[in-house]
């Protein structure tokens, strides 16, 4: 627990609030999936909220995030309204991708969400490219790639980190090591269990943090963002965390991990951990935290209603936006 950090109270409450927002949106989506409101895949972020929350708390709207197939949390933490995320999964015209993307293709460039992706790896490269733009144009902006442990043995990880390093690009490479690439354990696919150590191989700082401790993530990301903004180049941050729900909603979740293991990680629930700290440190009462939960639940219910009432896109627009202009 990063108890020695100097993070102000409002920030801690805000981090708590964002994590609860992600958690409740995900749970609402899981219920909606069971109700048949979600037409395609739905990968929830439950258990990993501290990572997106801790990193994105440092980002401005103009900073950009390139996310993964498990990207709802990143979208919400970056500022995409829950109703736009939900409407997108419902396939509605008010979804953040106007119904063209679904869970794995959330786009909201207005707030710097440059897409979640259905392919593991490319977002690492794209984040480097955004860093290239910022550096080329002399903008003091930061680009973040979130990716799982499943991406770090993909060539894109190697090529992207190397490019960002040689060009000194303002990029954060945030690995959410949740121990499993879908169902393949990281211990199986990588002889060296350390991801953070790999930073040194590319000549960039590599940091390992407790991904369920939002304050630790916040602290590490803050240093990396500051370095990036001051032309100090990229940083690799490995956040050790755990996915509580199945890989995707509706998938069975056995065989590759034990219920005991899941139960142990539930004890280390990032919201629970921060809540305990806030009450222990006297920053908030349990009643205040409960009130945050109630407020967000009401917001989430409204978002669900909004998404349900949003129309489906006009079929005649199915081939719009393939090109910037018709040639």
């Amino acid at each position, binding site marked *: 627990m990063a108890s020695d950090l100097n993070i102000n109270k409002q920030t801690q409450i805000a981090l708590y609030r964002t994590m609860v927002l992600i958690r409740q949106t995900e749970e609402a989506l899981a219920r909606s999936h069971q109700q048949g409101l979600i037409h395609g895949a739905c990968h929830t972020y439950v258990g990993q909220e501290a990572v997106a929350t801790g990193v994105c708390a440092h980002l401005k709207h103009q900073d*950009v995030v*390139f996310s993964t197939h498990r990207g709802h949390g990143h979208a919400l933490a970056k500022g995409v309204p829950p109703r736009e995320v939900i409407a997108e999964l419902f396939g509605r015209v008010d979804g953040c*991708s*106007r119904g*063209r*993307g679904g869970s794995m*293709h959330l*786009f909201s*460039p*207005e707030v710097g969400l*440059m*897409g979640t*992706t*259905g*392919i593991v*790896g*490319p977002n*690492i*490269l*794209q*984040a*480097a*490219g*955004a*860093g*290239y*733009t*910022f*550096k*080329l*144009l002399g903008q003091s902006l930061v*680009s973040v790639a979130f990716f799982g442990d499943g991406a770090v043995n993909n*060539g*894109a990880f*190697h*090529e*992207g980190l*190397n*490019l960002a390093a*040689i*060009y000194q690009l303002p990029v954060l490479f945030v690995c959410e090591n949740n121990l499993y690439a879908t169902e393949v354990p990281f211990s199986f696919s990588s002889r060296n269990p350390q991801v953070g150590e790999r930073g040194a191989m590319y000549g960039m700082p590599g940091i390992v943090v407790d991904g369920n401790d939002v304050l630790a993530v916040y602290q590490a990301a803050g240093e990396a963002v500051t370095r990036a903004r001051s032309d100090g180049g990229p940083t690799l941050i490995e956040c050790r965390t755990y996915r509580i729900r199945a890989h995707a909603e509706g998938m069975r979740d056995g065989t590759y991990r034990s219920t005991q293991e899941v139960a142990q990680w539930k004890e280390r629930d990032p919201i629970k951990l921060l809540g305990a700290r806030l009450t222990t440190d006297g920053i908030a009462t349990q009643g205040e935290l409960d009130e945050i939960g109630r407020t967000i639940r009401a917001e989430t219910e409204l978002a669900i209603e909004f998404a349900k009432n949003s129309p489906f896109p006009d079929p005649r627009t199915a*081939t*719009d*936006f*393939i*090109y*910037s*202009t018709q*040639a």
Partner: protein
Amino acid sequence: MREITFTAAAREGLAEEMERDPTIFVVGEGIGARGGNFGTTLGLYEKYGGMRLNDTPIAERGFVGMCCGAAMTGSRPIVDFMFADFILDAMGELLNQIAKIQYMSSGRLKMPIVLRGCIGIGNSAATHHSGSYYSIYTHIPGFRVVVPSTPYDAKGLFKTAIRSDDPVMFLEHKSLLNLKGEVPEQEYYLPFGKANVVRHGEMVTVVALGLMVHKTLEAAALLEQEGISVQVIDPRTVAPLDMDTVLESIHKTGRLLIVDESFAPCGIGAEVTAQVVSRGFDDLDAPIARLNGAHTPTPYSPTLEAAVVPNTETIAQAIRDLLKE
């Protein structure tokens, strides 16, 4: 009018655009201080510096994906592949990301990226440096695909490519790089999707791309002495493809041959054929003919290499055969 080479014309277009727009940058292997293996960026590094003319590791997927992200965030990358064969290592980035970002973002992101490289069989380049895979990119929604055949077209189309907000594959036949041709001093742009009727004729229409335009013109000159009048159409851009000009020509001639150095199956000839059959069936006086490079990896030895590509004589014979149909 002055005559300059194909490469010089494209480079001049690049220089003009880089001067105009500071968000344009070029990456590739050896395109920085060295000026490019084919001289595509010669002299520009000194003027615009390393961030705008940046060498890369040999990591095609990496720098293509990187340029995708750059294009999403407000700059205009040009990837110089030297040989377009190398683009294949970045296929996922191209097809799944670059071609789809505009659509997935419902048009709120643009994808102003140019991917350029040499194509074509010749000089015993062998099979990893001879590919012409334009039909693959044409198959994918989202790309513009340009195959210029003259210095004039190279410059005008390259400038349009750089200004396009869509991803453009700019594919230059290596046998044309030193071809000289008239290029005006003043700035100009050529539109995509507008074919060039490079020779007017009455009896048969030939559609050809890149180097094959020149081979077909040689064949047409040969056939003129036999009283055969050939119309030659260079589409210049494969996506978008100007079928109106082709159909108009077939309305006149009734006969069509597509000469394509690349492979026949699912190729440009197949696409042109299908569209002509759909839209110009009643103009056809003979079956549509295709003359393609052999459906084979490209061999090295000069005798083998020559055997797998159409040449002036095989084109002329294909035209003669078509007229007998």
